[in-house]
């Protein structure tokens, strides 16, 4: 088997199926077609920016018919006018510069499109087109044909225009403007040269500095005043109170100083302080635009579904308009949006995402089918029992857990320190004031304000944002995307880890198949493979891929019995494949494993066993984690895997099977009642409740572009074995924060020693502030980077 790589998508080519076109090899007809489209339109530059940037286009027969519906289209468009329509589409496959190039050259592929612009971080493309020359449906179909299928879900349907909040950037711009200019204007006075000219113009400089400090004081720092005020009202003491206090005191003292001519004031330190604090806020605000941590069932559901009218014609209808008694058409890989009854003869539905069951369920005519499953195989017809809002899935999402927007008042570490810091500071200030008031009143005031100024916990408040911001970025590079910085602090506190089984610790990619029994001759293998070709059952398909390529043979007889097996006849030989009941063969082990038994000409040969493939490094990971955490495995599947799991996990871990989604949620609730700090690692909708309830919910995703339920963090499946590293790293991050608290306190002591003795001059303050800031920032950045190297 030669291994070449497809020129378009980079996948391995099986020599037999290779297609050569224009002197290049492709793995399939789809890739070749995309190449054809591009080269006919002179767009082969696409391949110049990145090697094998494409994706195989999928069959979308009828999938986008709902875009014929005017109402639906109107809700999806961003802008609508007679000759111009603008739509913003989310395209998960955008991943490189070639993608940007081809998507910004769409006008060459379709004449109705005037321009298109890509937003790479968000993986969106904004297409401006003329509705008289082309339609949204044609554009979407074009995108699919070149391998860039958009992901349109109910969520896009309801989203209004997103308001972008840039106020922090404005504040920083103004703060820096004031800071820079004030620093420059302060220089003459720093050097205190008693020259004639400086005495003449001193007033000018000082009042100019005063005027420049106003925008920064009033606008840029406004966030801190608001936060401090809210904190006082609610009785908590957060870190913004001493900050706001420090800023206000600095301003008042400096104004008094220049009005009465005592000195030049501390405007430079004040504006510098405001600027650095805002920078810290910005740094902590790292967001991942292409991910969404707030997904609910709406982003999992399609917008519209095909309805079959009473006269047999098919129309598209919005998911919300589905009513009881209507008939729906569900195609291969399409989602079933409502609970209903199956009309077609049989269906094979994959519920792994919803219930965690690993194998698709076979249903026959008359069976009830639930919303959330994916149809695998032929097109089926169903009759609706409940509308979308009443189906089981939606009920699951209406659980209180999601409505509450669990604001587990997590006390960030900075807020905890400030509870002691603020009172201590005020105490010190008052004591020093009282001490000096008996000696010299003016100095007393000086000292009082100086203490509040220099102890202003600028370094303290900057520690957490810069540390956590850096950690967030490093984790993001390692493919663990966290919702925000507080999740890191929560990660460090976890003591119990709960794992889901299907899809989380197992991967559906390579279910390993093993064979037990008498060896097959090559003739028998030929017969087997040909028998399997006729069946659409997922197990048959997997087995078919597993058996090496064989010659084609015609069957004389073929019969598939749902839920039991297959019977086929080739000339004189009969083959029976299926469950042990079908073959009337009782096997010794009652493992409840998935097995396909083989019988040829009435003689039992053996069975193929389908093993769940556990993720790489799982045992090692469990071993490591077991040293510091309690481990639990919750599964929606049956307990066929119990023995294997018990081997892999340490003695006292809990393993529970057959858990419905509500049961998983309750399990976590109970753990929390016992005082545990729980982290849940899951992947599907069946874990959604548990993920929301736990202290930290991590969603594992094979492809981060595909739906993952509401969680605090998304981990790429390839990095699953690194969970131990991430847990340790978050603990190290907290250690770093405590260490740098220590460093900043040292600066505070030094500054306070100047202040208490009445020696705090503006120039000293102007030196200490930036110095402490820069030290802290460099320190935490270096330390977190060092920690990230530790495996």
């Amino acid at each position, binding site marked *: 088997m030669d291994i070449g790589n497809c020129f378009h998508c980079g996948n391995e080519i099986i020599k037999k199926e290779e297609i050569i076109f224009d002197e290049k090899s492709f793995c399939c007809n789809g890739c070749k077609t995309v190449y054809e489209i591009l080269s*006919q339109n*002179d767009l082969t*530059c696409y391949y110049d920016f990145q090697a094998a940037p494409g994706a195989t286009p999928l069959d979308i027969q009828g999938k986008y018919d709902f875009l014929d519906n005017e109402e639906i289209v109107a809700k999806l468009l961003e802008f609508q006018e007679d000759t111009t329509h603008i739509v913003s589409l989310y395209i998960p496959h955008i991943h490189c*510069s070639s993608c*940007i*190039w081809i998507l*910004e050259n769409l006008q060459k592929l379709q004449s109705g499109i005037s321009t298109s612009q*890509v*937003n*790479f*971080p*968000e993986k969106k493309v904004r297409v401006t087109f003329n509705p008289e020359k082309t339609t949204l449906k044609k554009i979407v179909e074009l995108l699919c044909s070149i391998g860039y299928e958009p992901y349109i879900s109910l969520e896009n349907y309801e989203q209004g225009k997103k308001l*972008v909040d*840039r106020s922090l*950037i*404005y504040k920083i*711009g*103004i703060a820096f*403007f004031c800071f*820079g*200019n004030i620093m420059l*204007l302060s220089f003459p006075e720093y050097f205190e040269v008693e020259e004639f*000219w400086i005495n*003449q*113009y001193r007033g*000018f400089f000082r009042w*100019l500095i005063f005027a*420049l400090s106003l925008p920064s004081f009033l606008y840029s720092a406004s966030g801190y005043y608001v936060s401090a005020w809210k904190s006082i009202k609610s009785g908590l003491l957060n870190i913004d109170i001493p900050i706001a206090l420090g800023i206000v005191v600095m301003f008042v003292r400096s104004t008094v100083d220049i009005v009465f001519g005592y000195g030049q004031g501390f405007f430079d330190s004040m504006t510098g302080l405001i600027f650095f604090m805002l920078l810290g806020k910005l740094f902590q605000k790292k967001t991942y635009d292409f991910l969404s941590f707030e997904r609910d069932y709406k982003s999992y559901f399609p917008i519209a579904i095909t309805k079959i009218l009473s006269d047999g014609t098919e129309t598209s209808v919005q998911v919300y308009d589905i009513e009881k008694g209507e008939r729906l058409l569900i195609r291969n890989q399409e989602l079933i949006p409502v609970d209903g009854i199956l009309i077609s003869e049989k269906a094979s539905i994959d519920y792994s995402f919803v219930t965690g069951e690993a194998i698709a369920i076979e249903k026959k005519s008359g069976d009830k089918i639930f919303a959330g499953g994916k149809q695998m195989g032929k097109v089926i017809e169903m009759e609706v029992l409940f509308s979308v809002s009443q189906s089981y899935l939606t009920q699951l999402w209406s659980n209180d857990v999601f409505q509450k927007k669990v604001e587990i008042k997590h006390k960030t570490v900075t807020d905890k320190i400030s509870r002691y810091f603020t009172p201590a500071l005020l105490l010190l200030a008052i004591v020093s004031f009282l001490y000096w008031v008996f000696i010299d009143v003016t100095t007393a005031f000086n000292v009082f304000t100086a203490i509040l100024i220099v102890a202003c916990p600028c370094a303290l408040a900057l520690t957490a944002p810069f540390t956590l911001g850096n950690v967030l970025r490093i984790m993001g590079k390692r493919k663990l995307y966290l919702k925000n910085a507080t999740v890191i602090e929560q990660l460090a506190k976890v003591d119990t880890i709960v794992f889901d089984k299907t899809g989380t610790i197992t991967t559906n990619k390579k279910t390993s198949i093993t064979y037990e029994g008498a060896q097959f001759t090559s003739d028998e293998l030929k017969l087997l493979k040909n028998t399997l070709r006729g069946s659409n059952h997922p197990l048959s398909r997997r087995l078919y891929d597993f058996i090496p390529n064989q010659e084609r043979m015609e069957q004389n007889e073929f019969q598939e019995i749902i839920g039991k097996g297959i019977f086929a006849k080739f000339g004189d030989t009969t083959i029976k494949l299926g469950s042990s009941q079908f073959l009337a063969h009782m096997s010794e082990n009652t493992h409840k494993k998935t097995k396909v038994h083989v019988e040829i000409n009435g003689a039992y040969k053996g069975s193929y066993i389908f093993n769940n493939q556990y993720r790489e490094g799982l045992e090692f990971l469990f071993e490591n984690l077991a040293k510091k955490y309690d481990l639990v495995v919750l599964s929606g599947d049956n307990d066929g895997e119990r023995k294997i799991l018990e081997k892999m996990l340490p003695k006292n871990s809990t393993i529970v099977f057959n858990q419905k989604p509500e049961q998983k949620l309750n399990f976590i609730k109970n753990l929390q009642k016992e005082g545990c700090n729980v982290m849940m690692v899951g992947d599907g909708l069946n874990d959604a409740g548990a993920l929301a309830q736990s202290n930290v919910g991590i969603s594992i995703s094979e492809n981060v572009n595909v739906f993952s339920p509401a969680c605090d963090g998304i981990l790429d499946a390839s990095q699953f074995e690194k969970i131990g590293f991430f847990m340790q790293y978050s603990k190290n991050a907290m250690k770093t924060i405590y260490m740098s608290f220590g460093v900043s306190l040292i600066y505070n002591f030094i500054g306070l020693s100047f202040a208490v003795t009445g020696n705090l001059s503006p120039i000293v303050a102007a030196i200490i502030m930036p110095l402490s800031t820069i030290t802290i920032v460099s320190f935490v950045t270096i330390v977190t980077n060092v920690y990230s190297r530790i495996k």
Partner: protein
Amino acid sequence: MSVIYLLISVSIVVALIFLIAFIKAVKSGQYDDDYTPSVRMLFDDEVKKNPNKNPNKNQIQTLEEKQV
């Protein structure tokens, strides 16, 4: 030395102009996406079409072609 009033005032005004330009630029939304423009910048202009292809399509010259 009283010219210093004028000099400082002018410098403040110039700085203010830059501040306003900054605010306007941020408001226009061009910095919301700061990655894509860096890639877009590296794309070439329209490439001259292969004369063997469909003769009905228009011919477009590039700067590179002319310089060669």
